[in-house]
């Protein structure tokens, strides 16, 4: 079934990693620089993320995500570079426009932070099927019902878009204008939305029955369709990430104590 997600099916070691390992990686990528407090750590994680994305053959897919955030980041650079309180050291001047070193350095910090978080999330989003992610969370103890709700969101939205398309066609076929002035569009709203709502109610009822006949509400402990293989590789990566977080924590505490 069609799902909304950025996931792209590929056969790489990164895709095969346990989704929870990827979540742990995000945690590490955020926590370690935050605890350790250095830009070097951020830069290191950015480099690591890029390497992982390359190995997963999805680096190109991060471009639209990054280019969107760059628009925001450029404004940050301009505003902070020009106007940050505490700007004293002139970095360079373009005619009457003067950029200050303090502001630029602050903007660089923000930029690294954003790129780091985006890239580490990209690894999870681009290489994990949403349903696998939900399944991993259910294994961890998330209620299977809540898991179903999360997973179904990815499927229901494209389904509703398709229904919306058919309904628009059906009403246009009966001579209803759907394009044009605001008034035309307002008039078209009810004929379009009413069948969508009715259809959703009907499908929801049918879905509920279909789930129930397959024991959705059963109190027995649920098993999984695919048995999870305990893999050494996942464990090794998990251990490495945990060690990094702990080391950063120890580092932070030591700084406090001295």
């Amino acid at each position, binding site marked *: 079934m069609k799902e909304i997600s950025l996931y792209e099916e590929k056969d790489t070691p990164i895709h095969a990693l346990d989704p929870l390992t990827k979540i742990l990686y995000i945690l590490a990528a955020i926590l370690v620089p935050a605890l350790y407090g250095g830009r070097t750590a951020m830069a290191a994680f950015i480099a690591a993320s890029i390497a992982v994305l390359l190995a997963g053959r999805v680096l190109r897919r991060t471009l639209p995500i990054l280019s969107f955030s760059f628009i925001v980041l450029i404004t940050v650079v301009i505003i902070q570079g020009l106007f940050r309180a505490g700007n004293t050291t002139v970095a360079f001047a373009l005619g009457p426009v003067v950029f200050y070193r303090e502001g630029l350095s602050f903007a660089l910090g923000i930029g690294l932070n954003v790129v780091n978080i985006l890239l580490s999330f990209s690894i999870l989003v681009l290489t994990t099927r949403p349903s696998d992610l939900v399944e991993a969370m259910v294994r961890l103890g998330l209620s299977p019902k809540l898991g179903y709700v999360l997973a179904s969101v990815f499927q229901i939205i494209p389904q509703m878009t398709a229904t919306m398309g058919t309904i628009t*066609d059906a009403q246009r076929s009966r001579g209803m204008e759907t394009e044009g002035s605001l008034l035309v569009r307002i008039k078209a709203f009810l004929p379009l939305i009413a069948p969508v709502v*009715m259809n959703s109610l009907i499908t929801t009822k049918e879905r509920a029955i279909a789930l129930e006949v397959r024991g959705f509400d059963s109190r027995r402990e649920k098993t999984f369709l695919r048995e999870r293989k305990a893999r050494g590789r996942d464990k090794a990566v998990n251990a490495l990430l945990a060690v990094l977080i702990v080391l950063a924590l120890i580092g932070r505490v030591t700084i406090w104590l001295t």
Partner: protein
Amino acid sequence: MADIQVKELTFGYAESKPVLQGISLSFDGRSTAIIGQNGAGKTTFVKLLKGLLKPTAGDVLIDGQNTREATVASLAGRIGMVFQNPNDQIFKNKVLDEVMFGPLNIGMSEGEAKEHAEAALALVGLCGLEQENPYDLSLSERKMVAIASILAMDTGVVIFDEPTIAQDWRGRRTIGSIIRGLRERGKLVIAILHDMDFVAEYFERTVVFAKGRVLLDGGTREVFAKEECLRAAYLEPPHVTQLCKSLGYNEVFLTAEDFVSHVKGNGFTV
């Protein structure tokens, strides 16, 4: 009489995968069934006729007007289409209002629309249910509401997408007689169907689609005679046709009545 010309029609949802390839057809007054395997491009084809989709290449002319240059709403007065799922269109609280929606949209007066709507509801056998809420009706009745809402628009062309689904024997008969009635009033009827017995009984012309092309086109009897060709499109002739062929008759029979009258005419007693 409405006139539809299809010239070298090619269409694909994605550029690399054409759904229809170089289709040329012209529709005369005969009621026409479109049959073919799932995914052969039948629904896509009728959506192109209706102007809901625009051709990638080639042209569709409705009464001489190119669908590329017309909006769907402006074509609605000339060409009506009954969708598969009635739930995709029903939004009024009363059956009568639902059926009047189309006629009012194409510029009929209130009185005219009401008159047409009531006549259409009588045709589909829903007399007396005008004030009901459509969603209180059964699915097959709602399907009839959807049919009535197109009939009431009194278009020169009426397209049905799978009209016999979810209909019992009586519903099928009603739809069959509606199709005949439209034909007698000089309307062009085009229907997508999977029920070969229904095609044999009510349609004069049959077009077979396979993999985005027209495989066969001709009188229904003529088309169902070409069993080999039909098998290649994963279709089979009507049951009566198959039975009579197995019995060793050389003629092609389309319906039981057809066969019975032939046998009686030859002096047998049945």
